[in-house]
C-alpha cells in the first residue's frame, strides 16, 4: 500500500466517516479498545467489505495520563519514576532518555562507568522487550489457546532471567527508578557479571527454538510474508524509526549513526531487511535480539571502574535547577527513536522543566495503520498491529 495506491483506492486516512456511505454497503467493525489483541487500549474502526478492510481509522488517547503536564509540576529529580511507566516494556530506556535530556540541559557529566552501565541495561532491556514482542506476536497468531501460547510461555520464561538480573541490581523487576541525573543510583553487586553470562548463554541457546516456533514455521511464514508491506519512503515521512524502518530497507540506527553513552566504544551491527513486510520485521527483531546478547556480554566484561554518578547525591528534590535553555536528546529504544525535548526554567524556581515533550516512536508507528491495513483481512490487521509493536503507554503518555 503506497501513497499513490492509497489515493487511487479512495482511502483518505485523514478523514473519519461518522456515517458510512449506504451505497458502499460496508460493515463497520470496532476493534478495541477492549480486545484480546490490540496491545493495550487502542481502537481502530474498520470498514469492511466482507472480510476485506476498505478503510481503517485508528483512535489513540485511551491511555493518555497527562504525563507531560504532570512533569511540569514535578522536579527534575522526581521525573524518573513517572517516565518509567511510558514504555512499560523496556523501562530502562525511558529512564535513560529523560535523564540524558536533563543532563544535556543542566550540563552534568556522566562518568564512564555509569555510561557503560546505562548502555548495558538498555541492551538487556532490548532483549527482554523483543522477547515480549515475540511472545505476544505468537498469541496474536495462534490465539490464547494454542500454539501461540507455547511460544508465549517459552519467551516469558527467558525474560524472567533478565528481570531477575535487574532485580539483583535495583531491587525491582520492573519500573526500576535506577537512573538519576548524572548517572545511576544502584551499583552492580559482586558476582553479577557471571550470572549475566549464564542467563545470556541460556537465552542464546534457545533462540533456535524460537526460530523453529516462528520464522521457520510454515504457517507463521504464510501469515506474515507479504503482509503489511511498508515502503521506505512512507516510513520515513511518518517518522517511523527502529526495527520497522530497518525492515523496510533503510539502514539507520541511532546507536551507530549518532552514538551516545558507551555506543561510541563498541561496534553495533545493524540488522536490516529489504522486504518491509511483517516477516521482515520479525527477522530484524530476532536478529537484533541475538546482537543485543552479544553486545551485553561485551559490555558486562568491559565495565570500567569508577563512580556511578556525576551529579551531586540527591538530598533535596529541588537541588537541580535550570534557569533557561532547551535540549533535544534522542536514543534508540527497542521501538525506535525516543526523543525528549525539554525547555528549562519552569516552576519551583527552575527546578521543574517548563515544557517536556516526549517523542514516542510507537505513535509514529501507529500512524501507519491506515496505510497498512487497507486491502487485508481482519486476520492481517491483527498480525500487522502486532508486528508494529506499539506500546500504548508510550504512544499516549
Amino acid at each position, binding site marked *: 500500500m503506497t501513497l499513490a495506491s492509497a489515493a487511487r483506492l479512495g482511502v483518505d486516512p485523514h478523514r473519519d466517516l461518522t456515517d458510512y456511505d449506504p451505497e458502499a454497503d460496508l460493515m463497520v*467493525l470496532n476493534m478495541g479498545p477492549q480486545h484480546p489483541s490490540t496491545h493495550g487500549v487502542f481502537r481502530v474502526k474498520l470498514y469492511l467489505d466482507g472480510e476485506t478492510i476498505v478503510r481503517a481509522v485508528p483512535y489513540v488517547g485511551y491511555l493518555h495520563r497527562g504525563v507531560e503536564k504532570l512533569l511540569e509540576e514535578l522536579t527534575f529529580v522526581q521525573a524518573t519514576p513517572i517516565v518509567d511507566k511510558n514504555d512499560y516494556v523496556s523501562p530502562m530506556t525511558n529512564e535513560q532518555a529523560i535523564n540524558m535530556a536533563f543532563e544535556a540541559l543542566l550540563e552534568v557529566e556522566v562518568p564512564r562507568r555509569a555510561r557503560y552501565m546505562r548502555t548495558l541495561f538498555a541492551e538487556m532491556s532490548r532483549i527482554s522487550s523483543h522477547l515480549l514482542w515475540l511472545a505476544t506476536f505468537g498469541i496474536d497468531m495462534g*490465539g490464547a489457546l*494454542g500454539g501461540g*501460547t507455547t511460544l508465549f510461555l517459552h519467551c516469558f520464561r527467558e525474560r524472567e532471567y533478565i528481570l531477575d538480573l535487574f532485580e539483583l541490581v535495583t531491587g525491582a523487576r520492573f519500573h526500576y527508578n535506577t537512573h538519576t541525573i548524572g548517572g545511576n543510583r544502584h551499583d552492580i553487586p559482586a558476582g553479577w557479571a557471571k550470572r549475566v553470562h549464564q542467563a545470556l548463554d541460556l537465552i542464546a541457546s534457545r533462540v533456535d527454538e524460537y526460530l523453529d516456533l516462528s520464522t521457520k514455521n510454515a504457517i507463521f511464514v504464510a*501469515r506474515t510474508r507479504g503482509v503489511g508491506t511498508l515502503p521506505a519512503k512512507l516510513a520515513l515521512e511518518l517518522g517511523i524509526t527502529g526495527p520497522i524502518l530497518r525492515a523496510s530497507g533503510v539502514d539507520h540506527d541511532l546507536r551507530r549513526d549518532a552514538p551516545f553513552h558507551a555506543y561510541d566504544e563498541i561496534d553495533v551491527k545493524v540488522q536490516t531487511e529489504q522486504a518491509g513486510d511483517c516477516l521482515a520485521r520479525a527477522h530484524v527483531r530476532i536478529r537484533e535480539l541475538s546482537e543485543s546478547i552479544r553486545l551485553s556480554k561485551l559490555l558486562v566484561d568491559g565495565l570500567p571502574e569508577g563512580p556511578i554518578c556525576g551529579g551531586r547525591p540527591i538530598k533535596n528534590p529541588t537541588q537541580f535547577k535550570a534557569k533557561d535553555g532547551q535540549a533535544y536528546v534522542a536514543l534508540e529504544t527497542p521501538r525506535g527513536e525516543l526523543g525528549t525535548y525539554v525547555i528549562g526554567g519552569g516552576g519551583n524556581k527552575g527546578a521543574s522543566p517548563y515544557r517536556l515533550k516526549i517523542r514516542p516512536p510507537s505513535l509514529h508507528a501507529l500512524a501507519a495503520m491506515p496505510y497498512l491495513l487497507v486491502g487485508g483481512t481482519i486476520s492481517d490487521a491483527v498480525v500487522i498491529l502486532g508486528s508494529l509493536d506499539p506500546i500504548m503507554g508510550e504512544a499516549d503518555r
Partner: protein
Amino acid sequence: MNAIHPIVLHGLIYGGAIATVLLTLTAWGIWFERKFAGRMQSRLGPTLVGWVGLLQPLADAAKLLQKEDLIPDQADRTLYLASPPLTVFFTLATVAVIPVSVDVAVANLPIGVLWILALGGLMVFPVWTAGWASANKYALLGGMRAVAQGISYEIPMVLSALVPVIFAGSMDVNEIVTWQAEHHWLVLGPGLFAFVIFFVSSLAEANRIPFDIPEAESELVAGVTTEYSGMRFGLFYMAEYLHTLVASAVASALFLGGWNGLFGLADGIHWMLAKTLALFFMITWVRWSLVRFRSDQLMRLCWTYLVPISLALVMVSALWVYYEPMLGGH
C-alpha cells in the same frame, strides 16, 4: 416392557451407555489436554482440584453452571437458545453407527458411513445459526467463516472416507472394520494418504487449531461463542472436545481397524479406546504447537490440494480393488 420394540430398547441401552462413556471421556479429555499443554509450556497444568487436578472438569462444570444466564436483547431467541444443544446433539448422534467392539454398536446401519458424513455436514448449521443469532458482528464473522470452512472441508472428508468403503465393498462401518480385521488395516496399505486427508479434514471440521478461525480468539474475541455465557458456552466447549473424540473414533474405525487387535491379541473395546485416545493425543499435540491459518490460506489448502488429491485417491482405490485379484492377491 412389551410395549417397547426390541430395537428401540437396544438403542436406548447401548446408546445411553456409549454416550455416557463418551461424555466422561470428553470431560477427562479436557483435563488431559490442559495437563499436556502445561507440560509443553514448562508448567504444570491443573493441580489444585483433586489429585493432579483430576476433579478440574467437575470444577469447570460447576463454575459454568452458576454463571448468569444472559441473552442479548437483540438476539434471535429461538436460534440463540437452540444452537448449543444442537451442536452436541449432532455430534453425539454420529456415534450411533460406530462399532465399539465386535458387533457391538448402537445401530448397525447398512449406510453407516453415509450417516456419519451426513451428520458431519449438519454440524455446521448450529455454529452458523449461533453466529447469526447473537446479534454481534464478531459472532457473525465467526459463523460465516465456520460455514465456509465447514462445507469446504466436507468434500475431502467425504472423498477420503470413500476409500475404506471401496475397499470393504460396504458402507456398514462394522463390515469395514471386519474387512480390516480379515485383511489388514487400511492405514498400513493403500489407505495411508486417505487417512491423512481424513485426519486433516476432521481437524478442520472440528474447528481445531490450525483451523480454528471461527473462534479465533485473538481476532474475533471469542468468535461464534462471544455472546454465550454459562452452560450454553459450556455446551459449545464440550461439543468441540466431543467432536474431536468422535472424529478420532471414526478415523480409528475406518482406517485403523477399530476393535481389531495387533499382533494377534484379543479384539475388543480396549483396542477401540486405545486408538481413539491415541488420535486424540495427536490432535492435542498439533493444537499446542501450531499457529492458525488465515481463512483464505485455509481455503486454498482445501480446494487446490486436498480436493484433487482425494479425488485421485478414490480413482486409485477403485482401480486397485478392480485389478487386485488379477494381479494375485496378498
